[in-house]
């Protein structure tokens, strides 16, 4: 999540954030990866029903280019369009300074979202 969150930095998780609401675009969320302790910090870029794609590193939702001011390291990712399924969101890290194959991102169930970082 560089440069928004630095490797090795400490944060706290606010688990009650999504009690009355659902994750929305641009939210930074903690995704439960395995067990109860292993989480990934990612940014929601698309919600259910939206069609997400990357063209030469630019994010497109439903065919429209989306501004991503939090991305500092440009990339040349290409990803064909895909629709986010019901009950899911599409999450990507802010650090795109790597080949697309090496970056952990994609559609995940809302049930796996544990909360948001406190700061």
């Amino acid at each position, binding site marked *: 999540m560089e440069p928004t969150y630095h490797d090795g930095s400490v944060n706290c998780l606010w688990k009650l954030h999504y009690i009355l609401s659902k994750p929305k675009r641009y939210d930074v969320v903690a995704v439960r990866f395995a*067990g109860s302790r*292993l989480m*990934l910090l990612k940014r929601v870029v698309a919600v259910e029903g939206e069609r997400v794609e990357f063209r030469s590193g630019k994010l497109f939702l439903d065919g429209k280019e989306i501004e991503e001011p939090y991305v500092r390291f440009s990339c040349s990712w290409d990803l064909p369009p895909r629709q986010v399924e019901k009950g899911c969101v599409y999450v990507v890290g802010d650090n795109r300074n790597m080949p697309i194959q090496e970056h952990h991102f994609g*559609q995940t169930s809302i049930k796996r979202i544990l909360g948001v970082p406190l700061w």
Partner: protein
Amino acid sequence: MVRIRYLIIAVIVAGIGVLSSIFLFQSEERKVKKQFHLLSEWVSKDPGENAFTMAHKLQKIGTLFAENFELKTEVDSMSGSYTPAEISSYAARGRLMFSHLSLKFYDFDISFPQKGVANVTLTARLRGRATSGEDVDEIHEVQCILGKIEKRWLFSHVEIMEVLRK
């Protein structure tokens, strides 16, 4: 003096009793966990493992799986049904690609939805070094179903959970 001797004998007898009861009346949960520990032991490979140890481990791996064991992963070519013999064969090929290998399981969540069936969700971590020199460190959430067949818990279904789907 005689009293102390009786006391020592009583402690020994009690100790044997406790150990016997633990051994004879292992809880089902403990028996299920034991299968994972065995799988971990037999898949793992120490540097310089000798041929005898390798053959022994490979022979044993297959015994942990039911006939028509099913594997589900995000890699379609790996998903499907396997016999215990096929699993031993694939394990042999897989282990050859590593100079050392370690498979560990964490975060056990075990439930018994019906008699003779155990559902287990856990975290699996595979670490090692490929013979090509590349380091491997993979962590996944895994859902398993084990069935009790002839008093033994055998793996019948394993699904490697896909948390993020590109």
